């Protein structure tokens, strides 16, 4: 019960503070795509894979007092910081979810910038397409981000490095 909430909390316990809603969305999506058992469903939106379920779950965790949300102005927009509270940690200790290697993967993702994670998540969203088709999609759909061929190559390498860290459950 509340297992799906506990899994998201486990992600925060593993990653530490996560800055930015977009970054959080991309981290969970990438983790799910490399086989961590997150249940939230994602759809492609203008800015890449996005899950309304995840947004709602995070809001529930904030309302429960298990997650702390700090809203701050950054340039022309609002930025959100999330971290697990002591109450959240206590809940998690009673509802432990076994997710081997999650910490390693999420810590790594958290050290990347949101722009790169957006690229990685987009590559993963089109993972059934050939590489050339994926590039075409990125250059068309993400033209404003001006991703380069090198960055796309780095995204593929990064995905492989993450997959190498995942322990089959």
């Amino acid at each position, binding site marked *: *019960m*509340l297992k*799906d*909430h506990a899994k998201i909390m486990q992600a925060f316990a593993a990653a530490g503070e996560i800055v*930015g*809603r*977009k970054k959080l*969305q991309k981290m969970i999506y990438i983790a799910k795509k490399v086989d961590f058992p997150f*249940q939230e*469903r994602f*759809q*492609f*939106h*203008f*800015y890449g894979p*996005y*899950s*309304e*379920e995840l*947004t*709602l*779950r995070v*809001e*529930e965790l904030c*309302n*429960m*007092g*298990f997650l702390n949300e700090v809203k701050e102005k950054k340039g022309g*927009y*609002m*930025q*959100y910081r999330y971290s697990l509270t002591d*109450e959240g940690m206590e*809940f998690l200790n*009673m*509802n432990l979810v076994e997710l081997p290697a999650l910490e390693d993967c999420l810590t790594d993702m958290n050290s990347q910038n949101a722009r790169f994670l957006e690229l990685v998540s987009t590559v993963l*969203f*089109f993972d059934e397409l050939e590489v050339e088709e994926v590039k075409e*999609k990125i250059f*068309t*759909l993400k033209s404003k981000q001006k991703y380069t061929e090198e960055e796309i190559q780095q995204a593929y390498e990064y995905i492989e490095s993450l997959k190498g860290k995942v322990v089959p459950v």
Partner: protein
Amino acid sequence: MAYSQEKLVEEKVFKDPVHRYVHVRDRVIWDLIGTKEFQRLRRVKQLGTTYLTFHGAEHSRFNHSLGVYEIIRRIIDDVFDGRPEWNSEQRLLSLCAALLHDLGHGPFSHSFEKVFDLDHEAFTQKIILGDTQVNAVLTKVSKDFPKMVAEVIAKTSPNKLVISLISSQIDADRMDYLQRDAYFTGVSYGHFDMERILRVMRPKEDQVVIKQSGMHAVEDYIMSRYQMYWQVYFHPVTRSAEVILTKILHRAKHLYKKGYQFSYEPIHFYSVFDENITLHDYLKLDEAVILYYFQMWEEEEDAILRDLCIRFMDRNLFKYVEFDPAKEYKKLSELSTLFTKAGLDPEYYLVVDSSSDLPYDFYRPGEEEERLPIQLLMKNGEVRELSRESQIVDAISGKRRTDHKLYFPADLLKDDSSKKNIKKQIRNLLDL
């Protein structure tokens, strides 16, 4: 004449309780409506188990899909046509995507998808791109046309303006289902001035924007979404029915995996249980099939499956209490132990249901670009995000309301013919 341009000799009209008439003049649209994959949508209800709460809610995905098509047709033909920002070559693409946007929905959509980890959007893609009658019709337009339609529905098309017509925070999909669901449930929420909104929609670069003068009509639409969610979509009785439905499907799969011998073999479910469902198998599943099995399972030997099916078919649903996970999660653990001692498997008979279990997209101002917001077109030509101009929308998109309930079979807990003392303890904990 090219197939894409072909018109019917006489316009066909469908009587519709929401839009009065749905008009079809394009041969392609008429042919798509006649395909077996589109006709299947008659057998998938738009609101799943809501009919157990609001008895009128028997309308189908078929009705809704025609409604979305009609709204898009009116926007294009009555508002966008002739405007320099609108490319009329996108008309047929937009109409087809609107008509087919829900094609992949399965029986009792959300619960079914959740239990079996399926995605209706992926099936929509497979139906449009696979060996189907829908694909045959679209391919007659051009070889690439099925892919173009599929990409608009998947929101991965380079044509973002068409995507935003069909799927954005103010789109034809929502405008139809809010009004249609309000009509069939009989509630007084969900109504707004759609005609006004259509009149103030404008194509601008890669999205649809709303003229500033139409802001109050949009406020009404946002309020309707909010009220319909809490009063209809997330109604606690409907959620109870969803909880039982979900548990039936889980139980059936669990029994199958254990090698249980069903009295009546669920052959339609085998590939779903084995996680290798084909498009052919998927299209065979509709709500009539699912309910047939539920009726057969009312006589199964397995007591849990039998009980849950009888509950669902006879509408003897679980009761609920408000639940605060932050304060009561220790109590939940205690209850779980007591349920087991009382002979009630908590996996099936003690269920927490949260608002995130039925995702609903509250209006998001897109503060971190997570969703594209509704943009108002100001008189000076600038665009401004809706909640910056509207105090009502700003208030409603601020702090979110969330909700959790605990569901259980109150009738079994009140039956003192066995485990009397344990059940009394449970009742005390639940304040029954």
